[in-house]
């Protein structure tokens, strides 16, 4: 028997409206009818599309005054406008109409609105906001040290403002005849014209028309739309395990509004040309969570630029010994074979931050994005649950305030002792998504609140949670970043938590956290929230060392070439290492930070490195280049360069850091001698970090991946999983398997 296409049971079946008998009957019919099964599948796609798209429509909450009136059983006629209160006759009529008789009972007009403090705050901000709109500038009131605006802002401002929504790939015109990328430092990307990736790095960006631009220094913005275009066809709805109720639509939002900064992978550098490698540490972990979400929830390989290898490595904790001396972190060096290129050496630099006996009192201000786009299950509801986990860790000595921003910003919870969990949780529960994003006014209010309740010697932190389209509205990103920086100087730090799948403006968030002496995490599941808010709360909240920079000097007697794995957007110029005004990364309590170098030792075939002509006027560099190639003469040459007593060293690691409250840095040094260990002799932590790095390179399609494959990653990771008390490393294995399966398709 053929199943009729017009049979309403088909749709009812898809929507779970048939009872068991009816279902069985229909399934029996379908089993014999492949054509009807095909049709059913097409109907399913239609229903999934509806279930994904329709709930995205904004669902604006009632006004606070209306809620209040309901709960107190009184009807408060409602305010027309938060700023203007001029009453238009037509409005009065509509109010009367809408609420019928009751309003009449309550007195003729009832303009005497009882404003609670929160609402008043609201109004004030709205005014300020509109003032800002005219002035076009964020005002950082009562914060000194407001250094004069650098010239860059004048340019950065307008353009950035207009285009923030779309994308943030910025690059300048190719510089002719640049043979290698100068350091690309994200932190400077506020001024687009400063970013200069090398000419060859631009090649993949085929979106650029070559003659589109004439002014060589002007930057451009490219919308990255790995677009699904108009048709938002979706993968089968899939359960985001933590939030079953609304998981239906969580799985399949559009991709095309996410933007990632392009990463130009570090290439090998000749030691004789570049004996120093300098970078800022990075404790962010967002990239790993983004990769996980893309692989496991969206069932696709992540875009290469979303993969920051250092963040993937640093997602995991390693068993480094805790520091013992004055230095707030221990430094742990290890070297063994590189598993993807066995002739090369892999050097690991591992820092372990000290663990505090007791967490200092904390003054936290949650700055929460409640704009309409936060409505889906993997955003606001997940955010609320995440923050409840954090609140569960607090005591009466801590303080929490909540500021929300959307169309208007407001203080929904004034600073409250951490022990008053009920009040905090209730305020969180009340949050609803609605309105559009305007982070600018919200962030000012949040910082002001944090400042009012500043705890001397404690943790003072604004925790920004958003789906990342941080549309700063009245201001521009340059102003915003500068404000965050100013407050960081005033010891109010910023933590950024990214949520959700569409909209994510990865670069802005990372940059804000970076400037705000904070960290950037991406929360894709409640398990991830638990990791950041409970297990590693010390690292999330308490900074034990700031502006931590690493400079490695390689010994030309031992090393031909080297390559820093990851940290592309954290590179520093060699001079910046000793420059204490130069901002760098922070280490949180208990955090570990790991960096890897692939090193080409003497005596093996050198990697191909773009040739640089010999210098005409300076001999040293040219002579030393010859070292790599021949065996006879170089010994003497090396002797000239490297003093005998340190000739056997592979490299020297130097670190600079400041105490959390300090302004001058301390330097520590650790030379490393290669003990010639094979890969199998390496520690489990070393192997695991190596496997994560390999995975990252494969996801990025890195030309440096050598003989690596996902199978190799699995093999390496499996043997180094170790105790893995929280299951993170085992989860990593799942990611690798998933990536392997996706790549095979």
């Amino acid at each position, binding site marked *: 028997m053929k199943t009729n296409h017009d049979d*309403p049971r*088909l*749709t*009812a079946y898809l929507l779970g*409206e048939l009872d068991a008998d009816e279902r069985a009957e229909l399934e029996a019919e379908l089993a014999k009818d492949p054509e009807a099964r095909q049709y059913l*599948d*097409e*109907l399913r*796609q*239609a*229903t999934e*599309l*509806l279930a994904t798209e*329709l*709930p995205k*429509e*904004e*669902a*604006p*909450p*009632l*006004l606070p005054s209306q*809620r209040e*009136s*309901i*709960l107190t059983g009184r009807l408060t006629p*409602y305010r*027309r*406008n*938060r700023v203007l209160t001029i009453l*238009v006759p*037509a*409005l009065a009529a*509509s109010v009367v*109409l*809408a*609420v*019928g008789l*009751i309003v009449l009972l309550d007195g003729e007009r009832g303009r005497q609105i009882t404003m609670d403090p929160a609402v008043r705050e609201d109004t004030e901000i709205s005014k300020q906001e509109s003032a800002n709109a005219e002035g076009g500038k964020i005002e950082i009131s009562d914060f000194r040290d407001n250094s004069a605006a650098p010239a860059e802002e004048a340019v950065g401002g307008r353009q950035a403002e207009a285009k923030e*929504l779309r994308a943030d790939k910025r690059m300048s015109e190719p510089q002719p005849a640049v043979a290698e990328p100068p350091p690309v430092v994200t932190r400077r990307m506020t001024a687009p014209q400063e970013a200069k990736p090398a000419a060859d790095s631009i090649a993949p960006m085929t979106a650029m028309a070559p003659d589109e631009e004439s002014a060589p220094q002007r930057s451009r913005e490219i919308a990255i739309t*790995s677009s*699904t275009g*108009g*048709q*938002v*066809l979706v993968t089968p709805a899939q359960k985001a395990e933590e939030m079953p109720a609304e998981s239906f639509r969580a799985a399949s939002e*559009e991709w095309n509004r996410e933007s990632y900064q392009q990463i130009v992978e570090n290439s090998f550098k000749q030691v004789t040309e570049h004996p120093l490698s300098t970078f800022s540490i990075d404790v962010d972990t967002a990239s790993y969570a983004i990769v996980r979400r893309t692989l496991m929830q969206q069932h696709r*390989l992540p875009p290469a630029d979303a993969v920051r290898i250092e963040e993937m490595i640093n997602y995991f904790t390693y068993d480094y010994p805790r520091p013992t001396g004055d230095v707030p972190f221990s430094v742990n060096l290890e070297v063994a074979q590189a598993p993807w290129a066995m002739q090369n050496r892999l050097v690991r630099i591992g820092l372990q931050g000290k663990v505090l006996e007791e967490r200092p009192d904390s003054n936290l201000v949650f700055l929460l994005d409640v*704009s309409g786009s936060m409505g889906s299950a993997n955003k606001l509801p997940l955010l609320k649950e995440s923050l409840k986990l954090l609140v569960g860790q607090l005591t009466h000595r801590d303080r929490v305030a909540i500021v929300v921003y959307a*169309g*208007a910003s407001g203080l929904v919870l004034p600073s409250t002792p951490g022990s008053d969990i009920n009040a905090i949780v209730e305020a969180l529960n009340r949050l*609803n*998504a*609605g*309105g*559009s*994003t305007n982070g600018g006014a919200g962030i000012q209010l949040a910082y002001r609140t944090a400042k009012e309740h500043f705890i001397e010697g404690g943790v003072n932190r604004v925790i920004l949670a958003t789906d990342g*389209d941080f*549309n700063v*509205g009245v201001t521009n990103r340059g102003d915003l970043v500068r404000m965050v920086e100013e407050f960081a100087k005033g010891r109010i730090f910023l933590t950024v938590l990214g949520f959700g799948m569409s909209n994510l403006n990865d670069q802005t968030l990372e940059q804000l956290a970076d400037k705000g002496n904070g960290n950037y995490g991406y929360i894709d599941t409640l398990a991830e929230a638990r990791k950041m808010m409970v297990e590693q709360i010390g690292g999330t909240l308490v900074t034990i060392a700031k502006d931590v920079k690493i400079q490695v000097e390689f010994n030309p007697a031992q090393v031909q070439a080297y390559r820093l794995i990851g940290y592309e957007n954290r590179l520093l110029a060699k001079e910046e290492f000793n420059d204490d005004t130069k901002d760098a990364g922070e280490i949180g309590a208990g955090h570990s930070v790991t960096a890897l170098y692939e090193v080409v030792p003497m005596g093996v075939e050198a990697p191909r490195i773009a040739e640089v002509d010999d210098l005409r006027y300076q001999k040293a560099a040219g002579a030393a280049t010859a070292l790599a190639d021949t065996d006879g003469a170089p010994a003497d040459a090396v002797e000239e360069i490297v003093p005998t007593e340190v000739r056997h060293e592979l490299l020297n690691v130097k670190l600079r850091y400041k105490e959390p409250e300090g302004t001058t840095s301390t330097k520590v040094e650790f030379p490393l001698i290669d003990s010639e260990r094979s890969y199998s002799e390496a520690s489990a932590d070393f192997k695991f970090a190596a496997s994560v790095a390999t995975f990252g390179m494969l996801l990025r399609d890195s030309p440096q991946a050598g003989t690596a494959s996902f199978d190799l990653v699995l093999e390496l990771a499996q043997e180094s999983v170790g105790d893995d008390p929280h299951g993170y490393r085992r989860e990593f294995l799942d990611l690798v398997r998933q990536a392997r399966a996706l790549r095979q398709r």
Partner: protein
Amino acid sequence: METAPNSTEWVRGAMDRYEGKLVRYAMRFTRNLEAARDVVQDTFLRLCRAERHKVDDHLAAWLYTVCRNRCLEVHRKDKRLQLTEDEILHQHPTNEPTPGAVLEREELTGAVWGFVGDLPDNQRECIRLKFQDGLSYKEISQITGLSVGNVGYLLHVAVQKLRDELKAEGGMKTLTGAKHED
């Protein structure tokens, strides 16, 4: 008629769960956020006075039904008043969409909203109540006064239409190979 006021917690819970959805629902009738909010406020005030045991097992359907009836009442009166377009515009409160939100809205419009907008009223209402508000056939039947069978029929016809449109646009995956991007 007035019974003991219902516990604040219960009303608060209902409000937390449904206020946004109801305002959105009401806006389909009022086309005006302020009026929609007023209707929803009124709906919850009625909930405060309702007999809880009579409402509790079908709270969603109750709220939507009351809200819908209030909207229709207001709408009928509204027609006599004939607000001009301009007056309606001026009633928008402060959190009117900034350009970003408008953009987002337009993108959605492009995808499915165009389709939804073209449906006959009764189909559109069923589609929204089903996919936007997650209500069952039975609840939709209670709210709209249509029979359950009729609700099922209207939904099926609408879903078929969307399927046809997707198919025509070539946006349909085949049963075997999912379309892969990147």
